[in-house]
């Protein structure tokens, strides 16, 4: 049983998150229909409308899940009930009004019927990731303020906070306040894009690298209440925050190469954005170190799997696939092609896995039901389907994007040729997306079953499994090294488009082969790493290893 009544206030937020995740996947599936048969839906539900739903459902369900996790965690951290529980109920209501309102006004973009006031679009705006109109933005921002108020009032005084909590609060504050600049209408495209990236990029930096790192530091401290762990967590959180902040704030420059901003950004972005892989790699390595210190199995296996998902997608998807395309020389070719969603989909999945992990972590405690065999096996199936599906989807995007670069930027072929060149990979995208969707069904089923139906049965006890390469931590540094190498191969693949071998002699196999080796290789390494981490921790092999 949860210790505090106010922890149950997390449930409506969690429910909204699960529903919005469904909306996101449906919109994504319809987008895949567009890739395979462009005419079917045209005029009924336009591509840009579906994409707006796909992006915004993702953002809102991540917000919602984060709210849920924090509302669940704060009473435990402070040792008392939440302050202002009425406000939290109001917040839940406001969130639903916000989501319904924003989603209901998006279809107006099919007719272009927006309302403008004070030089701002009120109902929606055609800016990637920040499509919600000004009315909804204001509502959401009020929500942020209520939320911050509740959290800050409920927590113990800041003097007593561990660093992990500082990271969580600061990361969240950054994400909230930098929601503003991206949403202001600027007349000039460079200004508009410049500030839009403040919002979008710093969400990733603030929320993923800082706030999530803080959240998992806190979970570790709750699960393993040893003073030594707090020391290790404090130290790694500090370095993570410093490196993420410095590399992230200046590495922002990699969005400013070609948007009409001055050339010095190429220098700043080119140097510092490369550093962005460091905190994420550090996070992965520190996590192993901490895991090895754990003297017990972590009972909540589904949550554990998804934590591993953040780690692996953070390392492979965010850091290394980002490294492939962050250099000015490779970004020149890949910018504006399908290579970008390769990084985007794996990166966003790191967020998604974090949110799912938090939901799974809170659920058994709130319902006070055992973590039984079915819960675990459905949760694991959900994880593997989502993980592998997303990797197939993202890799298809990347390989299609490399062909697009040739036909688009080098040949200057008409758009129909580019669509044809990308078509075979659209099938891969649809297939991967289908796997993710089945994974979602497993996840939702396991959660709803646990929430609504009586669960009897023994708590899940992992079977005794013989140790092998796939369920121990052997050779992890080697695999990480291989992954870094593969990322550099991928960068070389994109860079090779500038060579005479490709431009003059047309040796297309060079970029194609290098990119295929890199992207498919990274996909395989990701699956290996996830398997090794997750199963080592599940079977408890890390305990004997120490």
């Amino acid at each position: 049983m949860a210790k505090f009544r106010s922890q149950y206030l997390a449930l409506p937020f969690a429910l909204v998150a699960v529903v919005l995740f469904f909306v996101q996947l449906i919109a994504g599936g319809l987008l895949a229909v567009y890739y395979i048969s462009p005419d079917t839906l045209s005029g009924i539900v336009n591509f840009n409308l579906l994409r707006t739903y796909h992006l915004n459902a993702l953002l809102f369900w991540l917000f919602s899940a984060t709210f849920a996790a924090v509302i669940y965690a704060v009473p435990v951290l402070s040792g008392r009930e939440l302050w202002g529980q009425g406000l939290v109920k109001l917040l839940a209501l406001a969130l639903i009004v916000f989501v319904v309102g924003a989603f209901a006004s998006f279809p107006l973009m099919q007719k272009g019927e927006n309302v403008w006031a004070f030089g701002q679009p009120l109902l929606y705006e055609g800016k990637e990731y920040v499509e919600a109109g000004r009315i909804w933005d204001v509502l959401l921002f009020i929500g942020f303020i209520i939320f911050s108020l509740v959290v800050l009032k409920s927590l113990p005084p800041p003097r007593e906070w561990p660093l992990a909590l500082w990271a969580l609060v600061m990361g969240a504050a950054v994400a909230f306040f930098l929601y503003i600049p991206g949403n202001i209408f600027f007349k000039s495209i460079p200004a508009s894009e410049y500030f839009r990236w403040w919002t979008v990029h710093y969400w990733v930096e603030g929320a993923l690298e800082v706030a999530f790192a803080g959240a998992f530091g806190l979970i570790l401290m709750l699960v393993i209440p040893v003073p030594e762990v707090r020391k290790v967590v404090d130290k790694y959180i500090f370095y993570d925050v410093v490196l993420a902040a410095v590399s992230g704030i200046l590495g922002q420059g990699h969005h400013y190469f070609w948007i009409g901003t001055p050339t010095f950004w190429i220098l700043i972005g080119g140097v510092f954005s490369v550093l962005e892989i460091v905190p994420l790699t550090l996070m992965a390595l520190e996590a192993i170190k901490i895991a090895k210190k754990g003297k017990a199995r972590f009972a909540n296996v589904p949550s554990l799997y998804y934590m591993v998902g953040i780690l692996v997608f953070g390392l492979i998807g965010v850091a290394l696939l980002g490294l492939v395309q962050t250099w000015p020389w490779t970004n020149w070719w890949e910018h504006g092609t399908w290579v970008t969603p390769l990084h985007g989909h794996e990166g966003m999945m790191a967020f998604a896995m974090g949110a799912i992990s938090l939901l799974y972590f809170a659920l058994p405690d709130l319902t006070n039901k055992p973590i039984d065999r079915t819960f675990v096996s459905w949760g694991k199936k959900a994880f593997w389907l989502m993980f592998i599906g997303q990797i197939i989807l993202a890799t298809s995007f990347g390989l299609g994007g490399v062909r697009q670069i040739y036909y688009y930027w080098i040949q200057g072929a008409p758009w129909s040729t580019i669509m044809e060149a990308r078509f075979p990979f659209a099938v891969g995208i649809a297939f991967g997306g289908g796997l993710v969707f089945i994974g979602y069904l497993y996840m939702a089923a396991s959660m709803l079953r646990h929430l609504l139906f009586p669960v009897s049965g023994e708590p899940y006890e992992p079977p005794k499994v013989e140790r092998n390469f796939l369920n121990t931590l052997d050779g992890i540094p080697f695999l990480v090294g291989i992954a870094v190498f593969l990322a550099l191969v991928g960068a070389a693949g994109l860079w090779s488009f500038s060579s005479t071998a490709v431009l003059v002699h047309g040796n297309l196999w060079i970029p194609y082969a290098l990119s295929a080796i890199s992207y498919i290789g990274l996909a395989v390494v990701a699956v290996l790493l996830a398997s090794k981490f997750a199963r080592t921790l599940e079977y408890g092999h890390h305990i004997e290893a120490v």
Partner: protein
Amino acid sequence: MGSFIYLKFFVSAMVTSLLLALVLFLYNARRRASAKAEEIPYRKLGKFMIIASIIFVLAVTPLSVDMADKRNPSPEEITYNGATAVEGFRVAIDYNCMGCHTIVGNGAYYAPDLNYIARRAGTAENIRALLETFVGSKYMPFNMTERQLDALTAWMLYLRDLNTNNWPPMPRVEIVEGAGTGAAVNETLQLGRQIYETNCASCHGADGRGVVPGTPDFTDPTWWDSVLATEGFEGLAAVVKNGKGAMPAFGNRLSDEEINAVLAYAQSLSGQTAQQPAGGKRLVFGGYSFEPSFEANKDRWYESMGAWYVYWVITVFFGTFLIYSFMYWYARG
């Protein structure tokens, strides 16, 4: 520049990284040995770095958004039929153009990049004609007013003129002194088409795919790439002039200018159409270059010496990182 870069570049980068790594390693070793370790080493340095980077970004923001430094045209000054580019941006926001297209490379990748289209179309008339063709079709099923189309035209002209460090990459236009500006290119293609249809279509096919066996497929861009790489435009012109195999010689029937026109038309069948040439110059199709298509984009920092300095710094950083981590790992055993 090539040999300088490849020899001195890597040697100097590697030596610097090695030295840096060594210094770091020795410094850390001494630090560990001498004092009792702080709880969190480098705590002050870390905090300072965060604050310094925030201040830096805030300081360069006015430069970056054209407040302090006029790098881009003003959207209010660009107009078409009385509609300004700002008005066009509002229309673009109302119809969510970014949800399918990309703008300066950011967006949905489902439709072509708008800066790219604007630069290829070149003139306001061409942009307007494109908009008229596609708006209302199944690709862009919208009902827009004339005023909205004018506004979008102005906005696309603004996008064309942004100084984007010469991105996106454009197919090559080899510029030869001679005839033809914007309108003349279309005239060239028109002329080429007439000549093609009367002289060439019977064997090569009206669509360029070839009727008689042994004729090449003009719609295949790779054929053009290979033949332009091996024989070049001049070689092709010589074939038309003197004939080859079953193909008769056209040198006595067509002038040089007409031969160029018909070749340009034939190549345009492959989709490698021309963009706007600079004034007073003739267009030759094919291949690829970074040749700036566009006045405001002449600076190509990308290929300059400055780019190599950046690359050097990055290489040194990574070299140091790799060597240092190897040392660290070796020392720990």
